[in-house]
C-alpha cells in the first residue's frame, strides 16, 4: 500500500487559494484545528468552507481573512455564543453564506460522493431558503407523489478530518465510532482528503477492529500524526473542549488589537504543534481536558 504519512506543512500544500474546503466540525466538537492553524499560517486566501456547524475554526479563518464563502447549516460556538468575526464578515458582505438545512447539506454532499447530479429532501419546503439558492429547486415526483427539493451535488476540493487513529497508508479509524455526518460523507464527496490523527499505528492495530475503519487508505491523500489535534474543540472520548481558550477568544473579539495578539500567541507564534500545546497550557492542561474537567 502507498504511504500517505506526511507533515502538517506538506499536507496543507494540498489546499490551494480559492479551494472549497470541507471541514469536520460540530460547534465545539471535533474540528481538525491543527490543520486549520496551518492553513492560517500559510495565509490561504478566498477559501470556501463547508461545515455542518462551524465553530471557533471558522471564526479564526474569518478573522485571519482566509475565507470568502461558507456552505453549511449554522455557525455557532454553542455556549460560547456566536462566531463574531464570521458574523460580522457576513454582515459586511466579505463572506457569502449558503445556508442549508441539515438534510439539504447531506443531500448535496451525498450526491457529490455518489456522482449523482442531485439528491432530494423534503426538508425546507415553505421556507425562504429555497428561492434564494441556485443549488436548490423544487422537483415534481415522477411517480405522482409529493414534490421534493432537489439539492445539487457538491464536490469539495478537499476535506479535512481528524480521527482517533490511522496507519501510514491513510486507513482511518474512529473510536468508538464516527458520530457526525462530516465523517460519514464529506471525505467521500471531496476530491482530496487530508487526515490528522491522534495517533499513527501499525496496520495490524487496525486489523484487530476492522469495523472501526471508516475510510480506506486509497481515498486519503495525506495523514499527519497530531496528538490533541482537535484542541481547543473536544474530541470524544479522548478530551473535552477547552472552555478557557474559547472564552479568551470571545473576550478578544471586540478589539482588533486583542484579536491580533490572540492569533499571534496561539496561531502565528508557535513554531509547531508542540509549541502550540505549550502555549495553551502544556501537559497539565491536556491532562485536565482528558478528564473533561475544563469544560
Amino acid at each position, binding site marked *: 500500500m502507498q504511504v500517505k504519512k506526511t507533515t502538517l506543512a506538506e499536507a496543507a500544500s494540498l489546499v490551494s487559494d480559492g479551494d472549497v474546503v470541507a471541514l469536520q466540525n*460540530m*460547534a*465545539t*466538537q471535533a474540528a481538525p484545528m491543527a490543520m486549520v492553524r496551518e492553513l492560517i499560517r500559510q495565509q490561504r486566501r478566498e477559501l470556501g468552507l463547508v461545515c455542518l*456547524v462551524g465553530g471557533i475554526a471558522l471564526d479564526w479563518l474569518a478573522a485571519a481573512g482566509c475565507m470568502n464563502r461558507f456552505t*453549511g*447549516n*449554522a*455557525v*455557532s460556538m*454553542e*455556549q460560547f455564543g*456566536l462566531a463574531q468575526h*464570521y*458574523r*460580522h464578515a*457576513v*454582515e*459586511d*458582505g466579505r463572506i*457569502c*453564506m449558503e*445556508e*442549508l*438545512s*441539515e*438534510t*439539504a447539506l*447531506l443531500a448535496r454532499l*451525498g450526491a457529490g460522493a455518489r456522482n449523482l447530479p442531485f439528491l432530494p*429532501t*423534503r*426538508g*425546507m*419546503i*415553505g*421556507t*425562504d*431558503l429555497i428561492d*434564494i439558492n441556485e443549488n436548490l429547486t423544487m422537483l415534481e415526483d415522477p411517480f405522482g407523489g*409529493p*414534490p421534493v427539493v432537489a439539492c445539487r451535488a457538491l464536490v469539495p476540493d478537499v476535506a479535512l478530518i481528524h480521527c482517533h487513529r490511522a496507519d501510514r497508508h491513510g486507513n482511518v479509524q474512529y473510536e*468508538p*465510532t*464516527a*458520530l*457526525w*455526518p462530516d465523517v*460519514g*460523507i464529506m471525505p467521500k464527496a471531496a476530491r482530496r482528503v487530508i487526515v490528522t490523527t491522534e495517533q499513527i499505528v501499525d496496520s495490524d492495530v487496525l486489523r484487530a477492529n476492522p469495523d472501526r475503519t471508516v475510510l480506506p487508505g486509497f481515498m486519503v491523500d495525506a495523514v499527519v500524526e497530531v496528538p490533541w489535534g482537535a484542541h481547543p474543540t*473536544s474530541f*470524544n*472520548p479522548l478530551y*473535552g*473542549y477547552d*472552555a478557557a481558550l474559547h472564552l479568551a477568544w470571545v473576550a478578544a473579539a471586540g478589539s482588533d488589537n486583542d484579536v491580533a495578539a490572540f492569533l499571534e500567541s496561539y496561531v502565528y507564534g508557535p513554531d509547531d504543534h508542540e509549541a502550540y500545546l505549550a502555549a495553551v497550557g502544556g501537559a497539565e492542561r491536556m491532562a485536565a481536558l482528558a478528564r*473533561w474537567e475544563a*469544560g
Partner: protein
Amino acid sequence: MGTPAYLDSPPAGDWTVDELMIAVLASCFSDGDQACNGMASFLPVAAFQLAKLTHAPDLVWLAGAVGLEPRPGPIPASTLEAPLWRDALMYVEQYGDFWTLALNGRWLQKFCVGAAQLDRFGNANNSVIGGDFHAPKVRLPGTAGLADMGSLDKRLYYWNPNHNPRSLVAKVDFVSCAGYLGGGDERERLGLSGGPELVVTNLCVLDFEPDSKHMRLRSVHPDVTLEQVLEATGFEPVLPPGDVPTTPEPTAEQVRLIREVIDPHGMRHREFRRR
C-alpha cells in the same frame, strides 16, 4: 407501591419561571413519543427528563440527537457534547440514522424549537435580521435542523425565555423554519402536515387558533398580567373568550426533581438574559 409523588404533589410555592416553563414543556411529551434536542437546549432537556421521571417513563430521549436513553447525570454546560449522552444504549450516527429517522414521519413526531424570531403564524427565523440575505443587519447562527423539522410533518413546540417585541414579531424577517406560513391552510396546500402546537415563554403560553392559525394566548403565568404580555408581544395575539386562564404552577415534586436531580448546577438559567 403507593401513588407516585408527582401525582399528588401540591403546587410548589417557591417555583421560578424556568421551572414553570420546564413543567409546561414536559406536559407536551408522553409515553411512546421520541424526543431529541440540539445545541443550547437546557429547557427541553430538563423537560424530557422531568417527563420521564413523572408521567412519561416510556418517553424515548435521543440526547443531543446522538445518545439513545443515556443515564441522566446533572445537565452539563453543553446539550450537544458527549457528557450529555454518555452511557447511552445506542450512538445514533447522524447521516444514516438520525435524519433517516427524522425524515420518516413515524418517529420524532414532536420537536422543540428555539429561535431568535417567531411570528404570529408560528414561522421561525434563525437566519438573518434586517437588510438583504447576503448583507444582513444581523447574521444569526443559521437554521441547522430547524428548516427540516418545520417541513417534515412534526408538531413543533417553541420555547422562548426572553419574550419581547423583537423575538415575538408580526412577521419574521426570513422564514428559516416553516410554521403556518401565511396562516389558514397555506401549510396544508404545500402538502405539509403537523406544524406549531404551542409556544412557551417566560410570560405566558400560546397556541394557534385552529382556522386562521394565528397565535392565541392560552394562559398567562402567575404574577404576570395580560397587559405585560401584550406589551411584550410584537403583534396582537388572539385572546381566549372570557378571562385569560393562569398557567398552572409546577408542583413541589416537579420543582424538587428539577433542582435536585435533573439540573442541580442550574444550567437552565443560562437561557435567561438578565433584564
